[in-house]
């Protein structure tokens, strides 16, 4: 190992930079929970005192609960659809030689890159031309499109990470393709499926721009927050709501990534 030691030698300035980078990455977001416990309607230093007041106030608001229900409905529908479709797509992309695969995958991954506003207005125009009124269903359609690339990208390393010979062995031992899928493939990729469900739920739960264009009369949680941002006196309770959402999102994403961690490790080794 001695010949690689010069690469492994710790680089103090770089370590310092990395620590600083992480701090700067997280600190702005941490101000939201900090001020959500501050006993003042003004979001400014010096802090006045500790209070749960804004959280208590939040609990009494019927629109918050309604928006939460809407977001959870949309989130669950989106994650189930995106993960279900994504699972088959990920299998097709990793397991089969398909002519024109590159452009097809590029097309499916478009929502990762193209500005959300373009998809938002395009879908809005389509729906209005078809005479479909905006509702939570239209938001769900938008979210499935946004979430599919995430679902596929999350599950591809899972399919890449296990040997197709296992599937072939199952087939050789007399299991048909349907049961091979459910008894061999699905358990093997299950962590990826679970991760995809958690991640796509979070993406949908937090998504703004599609919901902005496609929401009817029932707002999702981000839309509710957006509407409240106009009123300065609502700031503290929005901070409380934002803190709860952030904590839930971080936990869900962390769980998802953690469940799927060996897939990442396998993929990065390639």
């Amino acid at each position, binding site marked *: 190992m001695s010949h690689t030691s010069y690469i492994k030698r710790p680089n103090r300035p770089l370590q310092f930079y990395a620590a600083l980078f992480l701090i700067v990455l997280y600190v702005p977001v941490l101000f939201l929970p900090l001020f959500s416990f501050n006993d003042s309607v003004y979001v400014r230093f010096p802090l006045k005192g500790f209070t749960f007041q804004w959280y208590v106030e939040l609990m009494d608001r019927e629109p918050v609960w309604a928006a939460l229900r809407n977001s959870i409905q949309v989130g669950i529908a989106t994650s189930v659809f995106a993960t279900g479709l994504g699972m088959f797509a990920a299998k097709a992309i990793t397991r089969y030689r398909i002519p024109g695969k590159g452009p097809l995958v590029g097309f499916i991954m478009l929502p990762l890159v193209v500005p959300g506003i373009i998809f938002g207005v395009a879908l809005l125009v389509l729906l209005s031309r078809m005479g479909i009124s905006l509702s939570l269903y239209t938001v769900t359609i938008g979210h499935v499109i946004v979430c599919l690339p995430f679902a596929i990208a999350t599950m591809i390393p899972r399919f890449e990470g296990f040997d197709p010979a296992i599937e072939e062995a199952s087939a050789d031992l007399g299991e048909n393709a349907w049961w091979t899928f459910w008894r061999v493939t699905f358990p093997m990729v299950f962590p990826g499926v679970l991760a995809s469900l958690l991640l796509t739920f979070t993406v949908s739960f937090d998504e703004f721009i599609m919901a902005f264009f496609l929401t009817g009369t029932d707002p999702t949680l981000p839309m509710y927050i957006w509407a409240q941002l106009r009123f300065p006196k609502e700031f503290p309770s929005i901070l409380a709501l934002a803190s709860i959402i952030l904590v839930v999102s971080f936990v869900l994403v962390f769980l998802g*990534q953690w469940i799927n961690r060996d897939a990442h490790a396998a993929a990065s080794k390639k």
Partner: protein
Amino acid sequence: MTGQITPAPDHATALPRTGRIGMLLQRSEAARGYSLLTPTLLIMTIGILVPFGILVTMSFWTQAGFGFDTALTTANYEKAAERPIYGALLTRSLKMSAMATIATVLLSYPMAYFVAFHVHRNKMMWIVLITLPFWTSYLLRVFAWKVVLGYEGVINSFLMTLGLIEAPLEFLLYSQSAVVITLAHAWAAFAILPMYVSLEKIDRSLLEAATDLGDGPMARFLRITLPLSMPGVISASLLIFIPTTGDYITPALLGGPDGAMIGNLIQKQFGAINDWPMGAALSIILMLSIGAIALGFMAATNFVRKRIS
């Protein structure tokens, strides 16, 4: 739902496990692949291609009261070319997201380098930690910056409490720099991944060879690590530049009139101004300019790479 069930009969027919069937399946591999991809492609076609086609069509219409005049005309595009506001806003958007992209890539590269070369245990943990914020609410992360940069926000009130400034610094919020800072911060996690992947792929024996042949750390970095990680840098740049140009939330919350971007104008056409065809035309113009710049950028980097190697 029907889409998900479609592959089932296909699988069921594969029941007998004879070599002949295996051969048949082998031959129809592409067909089976397509059948698995079909539901996704169908959704994407309905959700992206069809709406986009209608958007293009609508951009050649004109608004007439509350309805549309569906006679095809290039009036919207002519208007966009004639009135300086559209061009100015587009140029400003491209400039601002170019600045955010450069800042993000420059600041994220050392971090990606650190994780790729100097983290040996719990590498996954670092990657998860860095990318975690990216998955969570974009709206709330931008909102957090509003709290930080606001007129009575964290920075101003903190500096005033310390007595360093008398009055709040007004340039912090509602400016182009506020938007650029927030964009760079919000997309940093996204930028790190592709750069990390291409740094991680670099064969370490190349670095050893360079050292054995007398290159110092700096020369080694410039001659091996940096060129080999360029694909990651290029994809990171495009992955940030393209979506940020059309960003809506950040300029809407932090930009003010000076920091407004083309996304805000597009939204206004579909909202307050209520001129959908103009909004459609602006969306198409935005897509075309981003596409042209991305292609130009890729061609330029390709040209440079060929010249170097």
